C-alpha cells in the first residue's frame, strides 16, 4: 500500500526530484508536495476538468494520472502560464477582460485546456471552442464569457487585435 518510487519531473520550468507513493495522483503531488495549489480538484474522477494541467504540452487530467506516470515529463500548471515577470498570458488577460471567471474554481482547468487548444487550433469557430471545453464543468458562468475570452485571445494571438 505504501509502495514508493523516486521521480524526477519539470514543473513550470523547475526540476523536482521526490520520493512519492505510487498511488499518489499527480494533482495531489502538485498540490501537496510542491504546494502548487492553483490546480484544483473538483471531482477526482476525471469529468469536471478543474485539475487539467499540460503534460508535455497536452492537456491532461491530473486527478486520474499517477504522479509516477509523469516521471521525466514536463508539466505546466496554471501558475506557469504567465510570463516569468508575471505578465499574464494572452488567454489569462482575456479571461480578466471578458469576465471569464466567477468563483474561479474551474478556471485553472479552463486556462490549461484552452492554452493547449489554441496552440493546435489558432483560428477556432465558436463551436470548436465549446467542444474544446465540453469536458470542463463550470457552475457559475454558463460558459458564455469563457468562450468569448477564448475567441478574443485567439484573435489577439493571431495578431488581429
Amino acid at each position, binding site marked *: 500500500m505504501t509502495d514508493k518510487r523516486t521521480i524526477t519531473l519539470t514543473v513550470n520550468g523547475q526540476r523536482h526530484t521526490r520520493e512519492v507513493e505510487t498511488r499518489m495522483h499527480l494533482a495531489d503531488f502538485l498540490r*501537496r508536495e510542491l504546494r502548487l495549489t492553483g490546480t484544483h480538484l473538483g471531482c477526482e474522477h476525471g469529468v469536471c476538468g478543474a485539475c487539467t494541467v499540460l503534460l508535455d504540452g497536452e492537456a491532461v487530467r491530473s486527478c486520474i494520472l499517477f504522479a509516477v506516470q509523469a516521471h521525466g515529463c514536463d508539466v505546466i500548471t496554471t501558475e506557469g502560464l504567465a510570463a516569468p515577470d508575471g505578465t499574464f498570458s494572452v488567454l489569462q488577460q482575456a479571461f480578466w477582460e471578458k469576465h471569464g471567471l*466567477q468563483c*474561479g474554481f474551474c*478556471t485553472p482547468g479552463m*486556462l490549461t485546456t484552452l492554452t493547449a487548444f489554441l496552440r493546435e487550433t489558432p483560428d477556432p469557430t465558436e463551436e470548436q471552442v465549446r467542444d474544446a*471545453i465540453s469536458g470542463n464543468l463550470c*457552475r457559475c458562468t454558463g*460558459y*458564455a*464569457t469563457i468562450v468569448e475570452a477564448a475567441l478574443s485571445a485567439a484573435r489577439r494571438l493571431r495578431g488581429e487585435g
Partner: protein
Amino acid sequence: MGSRNIGSSVKRIEDPAILRGRGRFVDDIALPGMLEVAFVRSSEAHARIRGIDIAAAAGLPGVVAVLTFNDLGSSRMVQANPHPLLKQNITQYPLARHEVCYVGETIAMVVAENRYIAEDAAQLVAVDYEPLPAVIDVLEAAKPGAPRAHLDSPDNLVARIPWKFGDPDAAFAGADHVFRSRYTQHRGGCHSIECRGVVAIHDELSEQLTVYSSTQSQYLVQRFLAAYTGRPEAKIRVVAPDVGGGFGPKCAHYPEELALALAAPKLGRPLKWIEDRREHFIATTQTRDQVWDVEVAATRDGKVLALRGRGVHDHGAYVPYGLLLPLGSVVNYPGPYEIKSMDMAIDVVFTNAVPTSPIRGAGRPFANFILERSMDCVARNLKLDRAEVRRRNFIRSEQMPYSTGGKLPNGNPVMFDSGDYQACLDMALQASGYAGFGERRAEARTRGRLLGIGISSYNEDTGIAPHEGAHVRVFSSGKIVVTTGAGAIGQGMKTVLAQIVADELGANPADVQVEAGDTAAFPMGMSTAGSRNTVTAGSAAHLAARQVRDKALRFAAEAMEAHESDLEILEGAVRVKGIPDKHLPLAEIARRLMGFVNVPNPIGFTPGLDATAYHSPERPVYANGTNIAVVEIEPQTGHTRVVDYFVAHDCGRIINPVLVDGQIVGGVAHGISNVLFERMIYDRDSGQPQTTNYGEYLLLTAPDMPRMHLQHMETPSPWNPIGVKGAGEGGTIPCLATVVSAVEDALSDYGVTVNEYPLSPERIVELMEARRSANDRPG
C-alpha cells in the same frame, strides 16, 4: 459626486490572484502538524446501529484517532432557522448515535497523518447495521401508515405551511372556469465545482478556535458553534476563504463542520476535511422533489382570480435549515400577477434521503413554475395567446408600490416596490420575434425538427432582511479598506463594493481593498444568500463611504478655511473647485485624524477617517423580468436543445453590467441544467443513491448552452440608497418554466401537456408516445 464607476464594467479586483493560481480556497490551507479527516458514512438509508468496531482502523499506522458518537457532542445540532410551524425539529448529531436516516450520514471520524491513510482506515471501520424500512418517494412518505423516516417519529410530517389571502372560496365559486393540474418538479443538488471543506485550529494559549470553512454563512457557523459548545463567540473565529461557488447549500451548517470544531481542541492539532465529489452527492444538501395539485380559477377573458393548491415537499432526513426552502416556494405567490386570492398550502415531509436546503432560487422556481404553467394552461384552454394572458394579469407599473395581500414573517404586508412587468415582456417578445415565430417553426419542420417557444415572467424578492454592514477606512497611506460581514463567494462582491466606495471617495476601484468573510474582521453579518449582498452590503458600503466623505469635507473645510460647498473629492484629495493647487489629500486628513502622541485630537472630530454603517431593509425589493426560450426537438430521439434564450431583466440600478450579465447567464445555465440534465436518483426500495458521479448525474456543458440575448431595464428601487435590486437568482427562477413551456409548444402537434421536469430525451419520447397511443385507442 458623479458615478464614474457605478454603471461601468470595471474589471474584477478578485481575478488576478485566481488567474495566477494564487487563490486561497480552503483546501489550499496547509499548516504544520495538520491532520486530515475522513468520515465513515452510513451505507444504509435507514438502520439501527448495533455496534461500531474501530479496532482495525485505529491500529493502522498513521491513524491518530477514530471518533464516534461518545467521543464528540451528545446533543443534536442547533437549528439554523427555527420556525413556529416546525412540528418535528430533528437535526443531526455530529456523529450518528443509534440510528442513521440516510445514506451518507456521518457515523465515525477518522483522523490520520494524511487523507490517504484516513480513507484507508475509514474502510476498516466495521458498522453493524440493523436495516429498517426506508421511505424515499415524497408522495409515499406523506401517506398515513408510510414507513417512518425516523424511528421515534409519529409520522413523516415536518410542517404544514399555509399561504392564504383574499377570498379564494368566493373566487372559485364565481369563476367561469376552473382548471386542475398536477405539477411534478425535481431539482438536483448543489454542484459547486469546489466541494465543501473545513479546517479547524485550536490555539491552546489563547483558547481561540479558528474554523476555515467553504461557507456562505460564516457568522451563523460561529453562532451555532458557540451555542453548541458553550465557547464564547469571541473565542470562535470563522473564516470563509475564497469560496468555489455556493449556490445555497453552503449556507447550511453541517455535521462535519461541528465535528472538526469539537475534535480539534481534543486532539491539539489542526484538522482538515475536504469533501470529495461522492460525498457531495450524499452529504451536501439538495433540493429534489415537490409535487403539487393546483386549481386555477379564471374568468372567460383569461383573468386569473385565484389559485388553490396542495403540495408535498421532500425535506430529506433532517431539518438542518428550518423551512426556508418550502417557505420560499409559497411566499412568492402571486408573483408578478394581480391575483387577489390565494390558497396554497404545502406539507413538508421527511424522507430517508439527503436533507434539503435552498439552491439558487430557493423554492421560488417551484412557485414560478406553477404560476407560469397556470398562465399557459389558461391560454391553452381559452385559446388565447400566452403573452396576452400574461398581459391581462400583470400588476401594472402605476399600481406600484403594490400590496399583494400576503404577509411577511414579521407580519408586514408583502409589497412590491417598483417595476414595469409589461415593458419587460414586450422587450422579450420583440427581441425573440415571437409574433413571427410561425415561420421559424415551419422552416424547422422542413428539417424534421420540432421547434417551440416558451415564456415565463417573474418577480423576485431580493435583498432580504435582516442586515449587512460595512466599515470604510482611509489609512494614512491613502489606502482605502472596506471590511464587510457579507461574503464573497465568486459573485464579484468585492469589485461591486469597491466601485460603490470609489465613487464616494474619488478613488479608483483597483485601489480599494475589500476584506470579507472573516468574523474577526467585522462584528456582524448574516449570510450570502437570497440575492442580497449588493442591496444590503452595497447600501451599507455606500452609507459608510458617504460618512467618510462628509467627515473629510468638513475637516478639509476647516483646514483650508473654505466652505464645504466649494469643495469636491477628486483623485484622492479634497479640492477647492476651480483652484487646482488648493487641496488636501485624504491620506493627510487620515493621518491627522489618527493623531499624534500627546497632541489632542482636532476639536469636533472623532478619531480616524472611517465609518461603519449597516443597511437593514424592512422588506425585500423586487427584481423582475421575462424570459423566452426557443427549443428544438428531434422527434425520433427526443433530443432537446435550447437554441435561443432571451432575457429582459430589471434589477434596478446596475453597478457593474458585465457582472450582472454573468449572474443572469450563469443562472439560466443552472435552470437549463435542471430541466434537461440533472436528476438525483434514489432506489425507491433500498434508498440507495444511484447517481453519485458525473457519469451518472449530468450537468450542462458548454455545447449545451443556447445563444443568449440579454436586455436590461433599470427601474431603481426607492427602498435603498443606491436603488439596486438583487440579480443572483433571476436567471434561474423563470428558466425552468420557460424551457418547459417551449418544450410543450414544440410538442403541440401531439397535444402533450408538460407539467414536470427534468425532461430527459427518453421522457420526451415517452410523452409523445403516450399521447400517440391515447389517440390510437378506439372510442
